[in-house]
């Protein structure tokens, strides 16, 4: 049992460190724990707003959860979320690793380049999405104009209005937006790798690819574990970019789980169902995190 204080001359002295973390704990309880518990409660109550004013918020057991699982749009949103994560996470990691490796080499203007990569992170999400919407615009957008000028496409494409392109377009924006943070984390990881290792491998005749596989990747493992975990968590809870770009459309092709939950609450006014879907998403996140860490730990033990 953790000691919370020490007996000193018959009086228990509370560790003053607890007072320093108390504000954080209080904030976390208020802003995190209470909403989660409230949502958990709402998920088993009747919260259909058009009628709950007169009916009250009575207990309904697992009815909300059953309604969620019976809703084909829920299953569709889970699939969309899986595709979104399955594509955006590897792309984000690979691109950022490549960028970090480039920025780790010496070249003229490296300092300026390092500061430029911060820009996507510094721009507010709303502003970034509004700009991307303009760039994606069918008739007057920059992307169609450039692509047609370069002969890549013959006619303008509806990047956010074509059901075949909308999800990919949204993933592109998500990858762009999240660029800097992970690139910087990987860059700091790269900078911590001793140069002697590369020198030794060079002397032994190892190729660049061999050095990358045998030195860079293993050395980056601790940072990469954190990076992947963060990417998974961020992807699961992503909302702003998708909603601002396409509101889950067209025809719900970009409706990831968070957007589904939002619409269940604010469009259908069924907050019980939305809370139930939220609890399911929380469960997915927790399972993902535990499984991921187990796999990683098993790999380390091996």
């Amino acid at each position, binding site marked *: 049992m953790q000691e919370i204080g020490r007996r000193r001359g018959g009086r228990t002295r509370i560790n003053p460190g607890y007072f320093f973390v108390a504000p954080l704990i209080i904030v976390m309880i208020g802003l995190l724990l209470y909403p989660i518990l409230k949502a958990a409660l709402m998920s088993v109550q009747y919260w259909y707003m*058009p*009628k709950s*004013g007169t009916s009250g918020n009575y207990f309904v057991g697992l009815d909300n959860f059953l309604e969620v699982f019976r809703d084909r749009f829920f299953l569709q949103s889970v699939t969309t979320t899986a595709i979104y994560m399955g594509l955006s996470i590897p792309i984000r990691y690979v691109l950022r690793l490549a960028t970090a490796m480039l920025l780790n080499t010496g070249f003229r203007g490296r300092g300026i380049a390092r500061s430029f990569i911060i820009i996507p992170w510094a721009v507010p999400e709303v502003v970034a999405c509004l700009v991307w919407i303009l760039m994606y615009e069918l008739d007057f957008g920059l992307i169609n104009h450039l692509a047609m000028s370069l002969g890549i496409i013959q006619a303008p494409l509806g990047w956010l*209005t074509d059901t075949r392109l909308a999800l990919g377009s949204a993933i592109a924006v998500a990858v762009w937006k999240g660029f800097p943070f992970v690139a910087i984390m990987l860059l700091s990881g790269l900078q911590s790798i001793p140069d002697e290792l590369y020198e030794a491998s060079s002397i032994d005749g190892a190729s660049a690819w061999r050095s990358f596989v045998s030195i860079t990747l293993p050395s980056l493992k601790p940072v990469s574990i954190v990076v992947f975990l963060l990417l998974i968590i961020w992807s699961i809870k992503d909302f702003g970019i998708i909603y601002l770009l396409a509101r889950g*459309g067209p*025809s*719900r092709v970009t409706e990831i789980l968070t957007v589904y939950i939002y619409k269940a609450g604010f469009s*259908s*006014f*069924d907050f019980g169902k939305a809370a139930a879907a939220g609890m399911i998403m929380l469960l997915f996140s927790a399972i993902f995190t535990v499984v991921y860490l187990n796999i990683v730990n098993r790999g380390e033990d091996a």
Partner: protein
Amino acid sequence: MKRYLSLVLSLVLLLSVGFVGESIAEEKPQVTLTFATSLYVEEPHQKVLDRLLEMYKEVAPNVNIEIYGAGYANYWDNMTTEVMAGNEADIMQMYPDNVATYHALRPNGTFISLDSYLEGGPLKELLIGQDACVFDGQTLALSSYAYGTTGLFYRKSMLEEAGIDPATLLTWDDFKAASKLLTHDDKYAMGILTSSHAFVVSEWVRQLARIPSNGFYFTDGEIGPYTAERINVNSDAVKWAAKEWQDYLLVDKCGKPAPDKKDSREYFWHGVAAFNHDGPWFIGMTEAAYPDLMDDVGLIPVPAVVYEGETYKANPSNYPIVSSISSNCENPQEAFDFLAWMASEEAQRVVADCGMIPSNREFSSSEEYAKDHALATVFNSFIGNQYDKLVNDPPIAQLQALQQVMIDATQAMFAGGEDVSTTLDEAAEACKDIMNK
């Protein structure tokens, strides 16, 4: 001399006390009212609302009104959050079909009843759209701003070039034939929403689906009782209308897909689309954005629809902009006084500049209004002559949930090209589930 001066001084002091006392007695407590509206982001309405607040400052100097609100697309979610958190604005502007939904978000109702405020006064009969503000026997809103219905604006030059006489476009079939002539070389007949915007349903419904079906969500002109059995979204007439609209978009390609209503308006202004389905507010928008274009803009009524050999007159919605007072408002009398003042002739004269039709029927039917706002007055003639009884969306709390079902269905049909019969049957089941909840 001293006594004389003392006397004068005393007299002056006495008179000053009298004035101060009178000022104190007259001075009303300062009141601040918050006013949420989705219109403020649009330039014509912004100018009108700013002017109204300026004028009202002179009428009631102790009342300070603060305006805020997001654009149409985000306004409703904001209002939901605010109402559920209990920090909504004192006055909220919306449309009649939204009132029931937001009123139901709180157990004792979100808005106050205005019946006692209206009793004995002229506003109930004076204001167009006031009859749409009664829910379950209570008056929950005041239609004291403006209203409008919809028509088809057209670019005169584009129709002339195609050899189309707008006066001949009397039915949907006439309109379809004309649309095909107008669709060529990156030009289209009309911009049509195909996104997640709420208008993706209403544009189709008001121009086509509701006309032969006489009720889109519910039968018999969207009147009650509002039960699952009376859901009408998969009736034969609606299915026919869905197929027509789908072919118009995906087969004939006469409609240019637009992600937002502002895009379809831009297509019209920039000569990409020859028609724009809109209301009198579009006049104000065009005057503000492209005043030189006004000479090239004409207006015809939404065409009638011939279905199974019978001709049905158009029955688009009446869009009065109404205002409700929050039950949390600490100064409901002052809030009502402001709304009632907005219905006065001096205020309505300013409201007319937004392009919509002022809701004070005495003013909007006056010669002065007709002379200064000729194009907006045309809508009145549509209502009187070409249109059938205007049909609004059902004023029920479940409306937004039903609309979300239909947004999904229309996207599937008109963007995804899915079978209309299957899609509408599924939508009908979803609507019935909502009504049965």
